């Protein structure tokens, strides 16, 4: 029973997160401006991370945790660089 509940919840959550990712990438396509696309990427990162965590719950393994942690801790670096590029035209001054 527990297993069924959890697996169902995981499956639904995964689908929802996949949908969220799809929506985020719609912004990446539609823009209209670079900042939208970049936030789209950031959102994609976050949702992917969540997906990984749900994947961990679904499989009962903790080894996927590090990947999620890497996204959580370092995923913003790419988007920060993109943002700075937009603002200053240069990433590192």
């Amino acid at each position: 029973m527990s297993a069924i509940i959890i697996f169902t919840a995981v499956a639904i959550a995964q689908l929802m997160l996949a949908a969220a990712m799809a929506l985020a990438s719609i912004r990446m396509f539609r823009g209209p401006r670079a900042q939208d696309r970049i936030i789209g990427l950031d959102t994609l990162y976050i949702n992917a991370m969540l997906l990984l965590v749900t994947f961990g719950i679904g499989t009962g393994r903790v080894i996927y945790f590090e990947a999620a942690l890497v996204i959580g801790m370092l995923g913003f670096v790419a988007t920060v660089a993109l943002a700075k590029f937009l603002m200053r035209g240069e990433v590192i001054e």
Partner: protein
Amino acid sequence: MMVNAADIPLWAAVAVAFFLLVGATLALIGAIGFVRLPTFYERIHAPTLGTSWGIGGIMVASMIFFSVAASRIAIHEILIGIFVTVTTPITFMLLARAALHRDRAEQNGKAPDKHTGSGSGPEEIQDEA
């Protein structure tokens, strides 16, 4: 470490499922808002649903799941929560400020000048590069 979902008590399973779904729902709503809201400045609010309690929900679910299943406290997910909470604002702040600059430089719609705390979002224009 590997645990089996069938080993955990029902209450925990329900809690896990609940938090999981809450988190996923918030993330999804955030994404929907991100697509639906009309201006950039409005749109930046939406994904924070996902980055705040969206993450929170799923992390809590994970913590409950692994703690109960392995019968010991497993709360390292909290780190993810902390990091995301701390780092996401950086991106948003930097981007929003960059957008502000761009809108001002292009005298685009009603981008607020400094100090004028008024004005709604600028009109949307297509990006060039």
